[in-house]
């Protein structure tokens, strides 16, 4: 990745953070800030899954296990120890990474639908563990009593604006880090593996090790999202590690587009807006969401950003500015 585009990303990230930081001075609409905090958690989760699906071609059905691990790990550490928040965050990420190494070592050599099923099986196993180990995790009720938020570096997460800024910062940092990884030579190798694993190994790429590495990286960032979510709800629930959670991440990626890095972020915002708006007007959320999904999968046939990028590209080639590219499905 060129130094110039890397710097460009950082500038964009800083500008975005500045815009989000200014918002509390302009409006006092709590619902908007709630949206940003939840969106940060879920966008980190969805973007991390896209590292697997969009960049490495590894379709995982069980990615929610890391989101859940992040939420429970962070929540349990804060409730049971007196670690400061930054340390607890790093510890919960380390925990998720450790689990990812073990699970990944078993899973990544499987192909296609079998990889998807075994990741789903691991996720459901974790979910069973969480709901049956009542004394440790609170079982199906989740972690109760709230998560303590001791002040650190002058940041008091019990104050709403601080929580909002902290989540936004974590979102920007996480996205920048994943962007850097995706655009690095490592990321390029992943795409070679995605397109043709056999050719990749002939080129000297250690496919298994690369896949394991991206699996661990994706799991770690998903856990970061989980920790942010646990701060938002001040607890952790088994639903965070249940398979509909993985399904939601898949929706967010498909809604926004898996060909563009920011696709999952757009998809997250879309799904959250849809959720909030639809539940205000009708009880039949499922019907509405189902129709939207059909519109995207059979109508647009790609995520929103993918669609937008393709439109721009087609206009550019129509005007002869760019050579025609082979569309990637």
């Amino acid at each position: 990745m060129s130094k110039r585009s890397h710097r460009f990303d950082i500038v964009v990230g800083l500008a975005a953070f500045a815009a989000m930081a200014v918002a509390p001075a302009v409006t006092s609409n709590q619902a908007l800030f709630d949206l940003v905090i939840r969106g940060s958690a879920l966008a980190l989760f969805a973007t991390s899954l896209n590292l697997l699906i969009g960049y490495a071609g590894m379709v995982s059905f069980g990615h929610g296990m890391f989101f859940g691990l992040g939420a429970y790990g962070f929540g349990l550490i804060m409730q049971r120890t007196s670690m400061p928040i930054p340390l607890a965050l790093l510890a919960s990420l380390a925990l998720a990474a450790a689990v990812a190494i073990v699970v990944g070592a078993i899973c990544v050599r499987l192909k296609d639908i079998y990889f998807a099923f075994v990741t789903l099986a691991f996720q459901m196993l974790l979910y069973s563990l969480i709901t049956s180990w009542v004394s440790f995790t609170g079982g199906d009720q989740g972690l109760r009593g709230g998560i303590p938020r001791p002040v650190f570096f002058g940041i008091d997460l019990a104050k709403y604006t601080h929580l909002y800024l902290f989540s936004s910062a974590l979102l920007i940092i996480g996205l920048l880090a994943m962007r850097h990884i995706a655009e690095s030579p490592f990321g390029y190798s992943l795409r070679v593996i995605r397109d043709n694993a056999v050719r990749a190994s002939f080129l000297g790429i250690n496919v298994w090790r690369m896949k394991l590495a991206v699996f661990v990286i994706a799991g770690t960032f998903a856990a970061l999202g989980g920790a942010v979510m646990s701060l938002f709800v001040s607890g952790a629930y088994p639903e965070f590690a249940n398979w509909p959670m993985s399904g939601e991440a898949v929706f967010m990626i498909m809604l926004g587009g898996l060909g563009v890095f920011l696709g999952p972020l757009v998809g997250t915002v879309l799904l959250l807006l849809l959720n909030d708006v639809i539940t205000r007007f009708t009880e039949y959320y499922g019907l509405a969401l189902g129709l939207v999904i059909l519109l995207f999968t059979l109508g647009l046939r790609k995520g929103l950003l993918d669609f937008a990028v393709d439109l721009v590209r087609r206009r550019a080639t129509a005007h002869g500015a760019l050579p025609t590219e082979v569309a990637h499905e």
Partner: protein
Amino acid sequence: MDIDPLIGCLLSTACIVTHATSGLIIGLLLFLVAVGLTLIFGVLKIVNFAHGAFYMLGAYFALTIVQFTDSYLLAILGAAAGTAAVGLVFERLFISQVYGRNVLMQLLVCYAFVLIFDDLVRIIWGSEFRSMGMPELFQGPPFFVAGGVVPQFYLFLIVVTLAIAAALGLALARSWLGKTVRAAAINPGMVSALGINTELLYGLVFALGGLLAGLAGALAAPVRSLTPGMGFSVLIESFIVTVIGGMGSILGALVGAILIGLIRSFGSLGFPLFTDGLMYLFMIVILVVKPTGLFGKPVT
């Protein structure tokens, strides 16, 4: 964990027979529900995530038919026909557009169908749970077979399930339609070049899968409470059974289902709070050791 009761049971023949019988019953019911899923995957290479929705539709169709005609037989036949029709329409309009595409597209189209139909059922039949009741024919006391307890209704279900398994197996292996379907699964181009309408074939296979799921729903309805969203619980178990048995293998689904039934039956003795976890562990072991399942074709 209650290892003592489990070991105690394994040392008593009567206990083994009772629990093995119940495991067999659970397994055969599971097979009935799962066989449609494995058939669709075997032939069309589509993972039908909407499988549970067909099961639900079958149950609700049966409920309504019984309400109007008081005939359980009519209910079963009507539900099967109804879900077959829905399956055909669903395949022609929606599934046909995602053949060969990313499995995520298939997942999303099927999941959209589930969401829409769960709400449609809620709108038509209401959100309260419904109950069908046991047909008079089966209301007698259970049979005692060599120490195991077999309710009359479950005997009926077992017979029907085994008949379906046999019929499907024979049809796929021997009949002209079955052979064509299997050929189309391996080489659709060639089959189509021979002048056979593969699109119609695919539609029929999917309709059959839907029919089987709906039939399972109708057959189970007398002992279930019907609610919108009742398809989810059977969906996960159907996946476990087909993955363990081998996607596409009917014998595999049968064996896998019985194994799961036995795990649940004996597992509820030794691990009453972790029986689900045992199933997932078993699924992981199979996927790691032989990803294509016990009776699936080996990975090329």
